[in-house]
């Protein structure tokens, strides 16, 4: 098992069929993938392509990778009914998430500012010519989606039995080291030292969204990074945590965020149309609801 730091989180590579040297080489390849994605898509690096796009005052000639990511984001906006919207970058800044997160680094004595209303629908994508045009008030944030996409991409370089865990967003290839699936512990959002449930996953990805970790103080209130596009403020929802099991980490990441923001009732409705998606919903009372195709480990 090899650990590395990327995108502000710990990335773990576990390839039990490889030698120690082979696993280290695979982890180096994963690190290169994450470094490349971060250089292009980081909101906090002034020289990244996304930062240049967010500063552009006219049509922006984007790379093929950026255009592909924006096209996928557009599809996810439609899939989630707007619960996922990458145009919340301005709202994140208004909430105080204006630099790389670290515990306490974003705390402010002043309350959050009023967020500017913004929709990804206001952004024009010219896929044929590779041009992007956005209104000045729209700031794009692709953080979670790109983390999932990079995990998917990097995992393709790993053997048929391997796990790549990017801070809780994990791609699980094959049936695990012992052939009976990868055992995935779902953290208790009320007590991160506890495990709520253990899932057994094969050849799928998992991601979790909650407001318990990436949060900070604004005045007398807590703010967090899961912005509701409908309000431009950190989502106030009846869910404490959502875990999604999906064919890809990108889709798991997007749906976990969208269901969390939507809340339990609308989240169930969203998932009802997605038969291949499994979900673990946890409310603020600690009640757990399992939706869709999931396999709970017998020793859970």
């Amino acid at each position, binding site marked *: 098992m090899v650990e590395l730091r990327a995108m502000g989180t710990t990335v773990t590579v576990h390839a039990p069929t490889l030698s120690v040297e082979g696993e280290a080489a695979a982890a180096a390849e994963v690190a290169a993938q994450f470094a490349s994605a971060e250089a292009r898509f980081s909101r906090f690096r002034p020289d990244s392509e996304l930062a240049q796009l967010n500063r552009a005052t006219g049509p922006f000639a984007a790379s093929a990778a950026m255009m592909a990511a924006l096209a996928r984001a557009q599809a996810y906006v439609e899939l989630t009914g707007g619960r996922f919207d990458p145009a919340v970058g301005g709202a994140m800044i208004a909430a105080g998430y204006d630099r790389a997160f670290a515990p306490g680094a974003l705390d402010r004595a002043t309350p959050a500012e009023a967020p500017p209303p913004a929709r990804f629908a206001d952004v024009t994508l010219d896929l044929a010519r590779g041009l992007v045009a956005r209104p000045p008030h729209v700031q794009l944030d692709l953080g979670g989606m790109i983390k999932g996409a990079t995990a998917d991409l990097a995992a393709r370089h790993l053997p048929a039995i391997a796990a790549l865990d990017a*801070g809780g967003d994990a791609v699980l290839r094959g049936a695990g080291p012992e052939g009976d699936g990868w*055992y995935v512990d779902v953290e208790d959002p009320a007590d991160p030292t506890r495990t709520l449930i253990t899932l057994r996953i094969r050849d799928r990805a998992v991601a979790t969204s909650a407001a318990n*970790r990436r949060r900070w103080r604004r005045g007398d209130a807590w703010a967090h990074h899961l912005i509701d596009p409908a309000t431009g403020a950190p989502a106030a929802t009846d869910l404490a945590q959502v875990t999604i099991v999906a064919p890809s980490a990108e889709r798991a990441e997007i749906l976990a965020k969208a269901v969390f923001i939507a809340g339990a009732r609308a989240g169930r409705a969203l998932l009802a149309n997605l038969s291949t998606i499994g979900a673990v919903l946890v409310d603020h009372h600690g009640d757990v609801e399992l939706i869709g195709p999931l396999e709970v480990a017998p020793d859970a």
Partner: protein
Amino acid sequence: MTTTDERPARRGPRWNVDGRALRLWTISGLATTYLVAWWCFAPAPTTAPVADEPLPAPVPTATAAPIPPAVWWHDLPPSERPAIALPSGWVVTATKPGDGPTLKPVPIARRPPARRVRVRTRSS
């Protein structure tokens, strides 16, 4: 007048032993000292004495047939090399570089860890 020398008779040696007896006495003394020292300082046996088992009867050496000369398998011409039934997984390796089959490198297979590998999903 004759005088008689009345000198007292000369007394014999106090230990009237000849050379042979002296050697016997010396050997006896040394043997006694050795036995006493052995009895006092010899290490105690750590295990109970094992009853002597009858030695197997010696196998008569076959001397009727001459002993064939020993050769290395690789030193024989290929046509004269006998077929060898090797145990499963065994290979005939070379006695010098370039001789015999080349062993393929075997990938290192690590033993599974004692505890099951677990992934933890959480918000990040």
